[in-house]
């Protein structure tokens, strides 16, 4: 295949992946803080989060496959799966590989959520927070367009979106009710057992 086309596909799909991935992180935060608006119910956030995640996998696949198949890039399949095994910028490329590995774990555990159980699913899902900055760094370090003004603009916008979302998540504290605290407060109010026998 024309190596130019493959190269454009790799770059384009990579950039779209980053944008979609950024949206997924933001929507994930919005799900966990139970955000809603008058015309936007909570379930919609959860469902769009999942749809975009699956869509980003498609673009990620295009990005990886076109890069490996491109004879000019001289990457083997191994370097797409095993981090830091490539000959071209092994460190920056490797970050991308780690990011993909983490993402695959998140996707697989999410699809098999009922089987793996909540605790495992949650632990792996938190890995997604690490996956995103790795993907961003991979783009900046190994991306062909990294120094272009428009690409810097895109990177900045994505960083802004994720930092805002993470800050929101941290400020929201425990989105779910702290049931033990509520019960403990009652306990403090009245510790006497009514009618208890000595």
């Amino acid at each position, binding site marked *: 295949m024309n190596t130019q086309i493959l190269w454009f596909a790799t770059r384009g799909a990579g950039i779209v992946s980053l944008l979609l991935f950024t949206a997924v992180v933001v929507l994930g935060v919005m799900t966990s803080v139970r955000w809603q608006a008058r015309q936007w*119910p*909570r379930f919609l956030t959860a469902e769009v989060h999942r749809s975009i995640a699956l869509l980003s996998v498609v673009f990620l696949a295009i990005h990886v496959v076109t890069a490996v198949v491109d004879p000019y890039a001289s990457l083997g399949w191994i370097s797409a799966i095993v981090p830091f095994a490539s000959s071209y910028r092994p460190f920056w490329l490797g970050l991308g590989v780690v990011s993909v590995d983490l993402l695959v774990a998140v996707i697989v555990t999410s699809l098999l959520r009922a089987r793996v159980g909540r605790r495992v699913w949650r632990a792996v899902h938190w890995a997604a927070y690490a996956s995103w900055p790795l993907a961003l760094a991979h783009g900046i370090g190994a991306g062909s367009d990294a120094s272009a003004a428009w690409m810097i603009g895109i990177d900045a916008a994505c960083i802004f979106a994720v930092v805002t979302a993470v800050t929101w998540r941290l400020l929201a504290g425990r989105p779910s009710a702290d049931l033990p605290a509520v019960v403990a407060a009652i306990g403090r109010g009245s510790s006497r057992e009514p009618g208890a026998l000595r």
Partner: protein
Amino acid sequence: MADVLRLDPIRCDGYGMCAELLPELITLDDWGYPVIAPGPIPDRLLDHARRAVDVCPVLALRLQAAPAARRPAPVPTAAGAGGR
């Protein structure tokens, strides 16, 4: 074969998405936790019920084949006339 909805009240964290997707059978109480209408799900609502089960972020909702709607055995009470 009728299905029933079964909620794990320990897992449930009051996200309330199930009530948004199946308002015919699920409402929210004063504190945002789901109140599920008992009994088998009408056929026309089965797809909506499956969607509600899928969306729950904590997997608290489940579809189960009736009649095994599993709850602890009922406890007889000493409540007087008009009991509960």
